[in-house]
């Protein structure tokens, strides 16, 4: 039984239509203020991975912000039971969405007579040390594949290499890959975090007419996705002489910390014009603080947190980059099965399976809320 209703599919298609029309309406003139022409009122981005089968770049039409309609490819698994271990940065709704995609893939394999069991574990707070312990413990058990959402690429990448050397099959998934030279077998997730940071920041700059004071909230220190987005934000702001970065803070994926940090930034910079938020907790905490202080600072941020979407709906947040977590989870399971059977990246799956990010605005918030959370309070 599929977990996603037909209604969700219809809504997704409707949303896609809205996104396409909105995108068409919002594309700025070429060469205007920025060399980066991918920043649009609504857009989707990916890394432009060289691997076959990877989703297309944003120049193509956006099919959907979240693709709930998946079918397993024609690959025939070698076994009738697989057991995986997945660990991710921290307990957070973002990864719950990834889990739903995983469960859909698990159900579809079960329909084919293939049982997939797995653990999907994370600490309450992001910690490279905790992740290392989990990985080493998992390696002692007989899992077919271990999947990692890398908490800190400098700390975790060597651990993954060690596991690979010991014969453990390891892949990375969700938002953060390991370092470039890591031996992990494959990655499924966002490969364009830097570009996401660029696109969100470009939208902010345009909104501010390319002048003003901006703060950057980052997630966990060392988390590749967060750091890449922050880098993209910094590089974008650096292009505009009248824009200034007044603060860069890490909330460690905590909404409460993001709130406190924003209050502090506003206290230090009462004339703050905008905030770039690089993870899911940043925009929620920032929006709470902005609302409380009645600041006019413009917030751009990442992900689909329900509270963030409501702030977007109410106009407190200017835009959000929504990643297709569902597809990340679904594709992770599908790639994990192939890796478990001894396959390597190539014809069956790419070394990096990319998933799209869609930037949405206030007019899209209601539809996205309905799509992701239903109309219930």
């Amino acid at each position, binding site marked *: 039984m599929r*977990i996603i209703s037909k209604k969700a599919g219809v809504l997704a298609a409707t949303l896609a239509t809205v996104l396409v029309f909105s995108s068409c309406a919002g594309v700025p003139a070429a060469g205007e203020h920025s060399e980066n022409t991918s920043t649009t009122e609504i857009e989707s981005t990916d890394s432009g991975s060289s691997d076959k089968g990877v989703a297309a770049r944003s120049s193509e039409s956006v099919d959907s912000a979240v693709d709930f309609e998946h079918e397993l490819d024609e690959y025939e698994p070698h076994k009738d039971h697989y057991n995986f271990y997945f660990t991710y940065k921290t*307990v957070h709704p973002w990864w*719950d*969405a990834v889990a739903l995609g995983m469960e859909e893939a698990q159900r579809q394999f*079960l329909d084919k007579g293939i049982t997939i069991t797995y653990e*999907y*574990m994370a600490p309450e707070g992001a910690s490279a040390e905790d992740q290392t312990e989990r990985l080493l413990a998992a390696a002692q058990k007989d899992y077919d594949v271990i999947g990692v959402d890398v908490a800190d690429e400098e700390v975790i990448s060597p651990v993954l290499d060690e596991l690979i050397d010991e014969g453990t099959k390891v892949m990375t998934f969700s938002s953060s890959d390991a370092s470039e030279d890591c031996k992990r077998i494959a990655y499924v997730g966002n490969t364009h975090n830097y570009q996401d940071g660029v696109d969100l920041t470009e939208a902010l700059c345009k909104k501010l007419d390319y002048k003003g004071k901006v703060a950057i909230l980052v997630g966990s220190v060392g988390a590749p996705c967060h750091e890449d987005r922050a880098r993209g934000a910094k590089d974008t702001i650096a292009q505009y002489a009248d824009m200034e970065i007044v603060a860069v803070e890490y909330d460690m994926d905590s909404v409460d910390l993001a709130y406190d940090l924003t209050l502090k930034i506003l206290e230090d910079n009462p004339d703050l014009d905008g905030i770039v938020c690089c993870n899911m907790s940043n925009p929620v905490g920032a929006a709470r603080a902005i609302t409380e202080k009645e600041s006019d600072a413009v917030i751009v941020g990442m992900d689909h947190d329900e509270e963030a979407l409501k702030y977007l709906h109410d106009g407190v947040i200017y835009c959000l980059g929504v990643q297709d977590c569902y597809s990340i989870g679904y594709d992770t399971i599908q790639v994990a099965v192939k890796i478990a059977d001894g396959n390597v990246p190539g014809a069956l799956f790419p070394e990096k399976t990319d998933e799209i990010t869609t930037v949405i605005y206030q007019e899209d918030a209601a539809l996205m809320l309905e799509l992701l959370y*239903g109309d*219930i309070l």
Partner: protein
Amino acid sequence: MKRKKQITNKTIVMTAVIGSLIVMGTMITNMLWTSRQTAMATSEAVGAVSTFYLEAMADRRAKTITNLINSNFDHMQKAVDFIAGEDIDSQEELRDCLGEIKSLLGLNRFALVDEDNVVYTQYTTYTGGSRHTFLTDAALNSRIITTVSLYGSSKQLCLAIPTPDLVIMGKNFKACFVQVDIREIVELLAFDDRGRTHFALYAKNGGNLSGTRLGPVIQDDNLFESLKGVIPDDVWEDNYRNFELEKNGSLALELEGAEESLCYVPIRGTGWEMAVLIRDSVIQDQIRNVSERSLKTTRIQIIFTLVTVLILATILLYQLGAISRAKLEEEKETSRSFRDMANTDSMTGVRNKHAYTEAEKIINEQIGSGELRNLAVVVGDINGLKHVNDTLGHAAGDQLIRDACTLICEYFKHGAVYRIGGDEFVVLLEGTGYDSMLETIRALNRKVEDNIKEDAVVVSIGYASLNPDDRQLRDVFERADQMMYERKKELKAMGAQTR
């Protein structure tokens, strides 16, 4: 007497006809009156019935969900008791056990949660602190009902119970929870509805949980978003407040001339409202159908009664007519018999003196009016009757009379023969009898003369024809009578008896 019989027959017929018409008219009037009364009563009842009907329906469905929830809670507790009694040593055994229970209960998800908020299901083990809202409280002290709608998943009902004493693989478990797809609840509710009503489950804000359409106006959207502008603002606010306070209520909609009634009742413990909508015309149609079936039966009964009455009346009239006709014929026959008896001579069978008198009256009128021109009167008298009576007895005399009558009738075949006295006959001749009168008389006289020699019956004949001067039949009769006496003398001379 005859006139009185005719009035009676007509009265019976008229009475039967008028009676039938009155019965039919009364029945038709009664039927029309009943129909109108029923229609009026139906209209008045619809409003009351709509609300009552919907409230009962919404309440019944709400109770069905409440029963489902209670049933699941009971099953969960039994399942936890069962797991506690099992000797589970590994995650694989726990997964197998959870799978068996999930299958037995037919649930989307049956899971246990340990003290670290790690969730154990048949296929997965995951950290669920952020995914399941009921886990945000460190301690779980009572049953919890929540609605799950996460990241595009189907909307589900989540039921959780605390498991304070459950220890598996050395770990303390804090909760057991199940998830029931709301679509399955809807299918359960729709089972006995047959599409007659629209119903939907709503969250407190009017969000549609069931995905079902609530009529053409509201469809499957947010209830209160759909009702904006459709109902007055104060009604909208009252009902919105009812939802927030988990109260029941009702409202009426009107779209394109069609009236709709909507009722909602809270489902205890869930924060949901069960709303049921029906077009008043549906209830009207149903009531009308019932009424029409009843009226149809009444009409059939009335028509059957009318037909029966008509058939019975027809049979009765026919029988009355037959009886009347038979009686009339009988009376006519009796009358004819009496009349014949009065005009017939009992001894000879020819017309008697009474008949002659009646005929004389008619003829006198005809003579008076001048319309009668050819008429002759023959007078015959039996010779020797007194002698026979005196010598041979009255029986012989009677026989002589009959013989004389036979003789006269034999010759005057085209005439009306009357016996007007003991030995006296009259024959009235018209038409053919008149034309052949002289030949007939000559032949009769020759016969009579022969009879004298043979001692047979002798009749003296005299005759006369109607003259223009005659004023009445008596004038002709007297001339014929005179002639008869003359003839009697002639016959006496020939040897016949005179008396």
